[in-house]
């Protein structure tokens, strides 16, 4: 008998996310990976500032709530204190790719043995829909009311591409959670990132393209379609780096 159940690592509490937001799916995938790898008892998660700030209430493992953008630095401390712990950060695009860019790049450069779950929804959600470092050219937000003008505010940051040049990074993959096929691929990537950490392989980052129906001003299903039509072309899915790919193929 197949029972579809809540993963144990996902707390049995009501999430505060808006209807149609895909954070819930990403939470589930992280919890599922923790369950399947049997690591809940030794996992420590680092919550960000942003929509997923309350992630510390949603996972049953130990959690730290970091300052905006600083999760990889906090994770570095937790991991160095107890290398046996499995340490992950859960961060949005503002947190990871704007205010926390230095922490992101340098934790990757050090090859810090942590797992970063990066939720990219191209907007600052919690503060009400401002332009993010990942907001697409022309995209209308509260602080780009005439659409993102690349001539004056520059171009979106492609995190996986950027980090693929960082020698210390072990595994980088961009996934999406807009349809069943992509969710399954996302689940596999997240689990692999945790497994790499267990094997001491170093820094992993999984970028998850995600929706924000509320601040995009779209219904949940239209938001999924918008992601497919607009985000994926700008942020192509796939593995951007896997230092151990050959090893994986042999296994």
């Amino acid at each position, binding site marked *: 008998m197949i029972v579809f159940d809540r993963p144990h690592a996902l707390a049995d509490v009501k999430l505060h996310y808006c209807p149609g937001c895909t954070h819930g799916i990403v939470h589930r995938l992280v919890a599922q990976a923790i369950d399947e790898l049997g690591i*809940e*008892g*030794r*996992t*420590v998660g*680092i919550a960000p500032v942003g929509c997923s*700030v309350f992630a*510390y*209430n949603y*996972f*049953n*493992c*130990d*959690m*730290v*709530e*970091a*300052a905006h953008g*600083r999760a990889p*630095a*906090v*994770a*570095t*401390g*937790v*991991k*160095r*204190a*107890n290398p*046996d*712990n499995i340490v992950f950060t859960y961060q949005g695009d503002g947190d990871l790719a704007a205010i926390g860019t*230095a*922490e992101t*790049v*340098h934790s990757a450069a050090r090859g810090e043995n942590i797992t970063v779950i990066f939720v990219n929804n191209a907007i600052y959600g919690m503060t009400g829909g401002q332009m993010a470092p990942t907001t697409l050219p022309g995209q209308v937000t509260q602080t780009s009311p005439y659409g993102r003008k690349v001539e004056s505010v520059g171009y979106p940051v492609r995190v996986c591409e950027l980090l693929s040049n960082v020698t210390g990074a072990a595994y980088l993959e961009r996934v999406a959670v807009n349809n069943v096929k992509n969710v399954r691929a996302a689940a596999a990537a997240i689990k692999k990132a945790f497994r790499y950490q267990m094997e001491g392989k170093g820094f992993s980052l999984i970028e998850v393209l995600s929706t924000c129906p509320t601040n995009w001003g779209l219904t949940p299903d239209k938001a999924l379609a918008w992601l497919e039509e607009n985000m994926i072309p700008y942020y192509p899915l796939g593995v951007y780096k896997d230092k151990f790919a050959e090893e994986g193929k042999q296994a």
Partner: protein
Amino acid sequence: MSEKVLMKGNEALAEAAIMAGCRHYFGYPITPQTEVAAYLAKRMPQIGGTFLQAESEIAAINMVIGVASAGKRVMTSSSSPGISLKSEGLSYLAGCDLPALVINVQRGGPGLGGIQPSQSDYFHATRGAGHGDFHMLVLAPSSVQEMASLVFKGFDLADKYRMTTMILADGTIGQMMEPVSLDMGEVREYDKPWAVTGTRGERKHNIVNSLSLLPEELEQWNIKRYERYAQIEKTETMYESFMADDADIVVVAFGVAARVARNAILAAREKGIKAGLIRPITLWPFPKAALKEAAKHAKAFVSVELSMGQMIEDVELAIRCSRPVLLCSRVGGMIPTPEEVLAKIEEADKTGGAE
């Protein structure tokens, strides 16, 4: 046992940290505290510890938060401009009730300032280390010996009260060499059931956090913290009194300024002026009661500082402005001479401080 070795202040403090059980150090290069990092870069690998040069002061203090969250002793060190960058983290450490040790080997400011000694981060350390209502324990060493012993004690206090201890030193004490005893005694261990080390499936998950969107709850967190602070003010205040019991003129000075003041006081006594020194060792909590007591016999106070006059406000508050308080200060990396301090003592004696 009490064998002494000749050490630089910055190295003595680093070795004392190791003796206190600190096995994690995160920092970023800045003058004049580089010896701390250089020393620990050599020592930590020898004892299986972590020395990590972070990409910024901000990252370093957040790595400190990580180790502190995991329940282990941890420190960072910097100098004034770097401490400004750490301020965000200092506020989070307080909000999360985490123990940590932070060294500020002060230099002249504001801005990039200079690289010579200063005490102009007094306000930052005792009042404005970051946003929100909080205090750090602030210890001010005045000798190489105290660089070591206050670091050792600072770790203990941090664990005991789940607070940040800041060692507010200056470039002079950091760079000078003196004989020091590293006989520090036993390290006291504290239970940290709140630490994030993994539930091991044996307990509910721990959360290290400073966020509450419920005003009633956040108010209570603050009130609880201040109850702890009130207790600390009663039991942990430290100061040294030198010829102050009968003094007409009470000099208040800490760190290197206290060393200068001591010479000036001896010179004043030779001239028949009853001068004395009260040297705060804890800047927070400030030795208010000792100053209040001294105001009973003193006709004036002199605050000697390497700032434009910051601690003087605490002196005035402690004695409720009941006596005149004169300021003797040099800034920008300059240090008052004993003659300058003596002149200020004489002025205070002649005028009774009346300006």
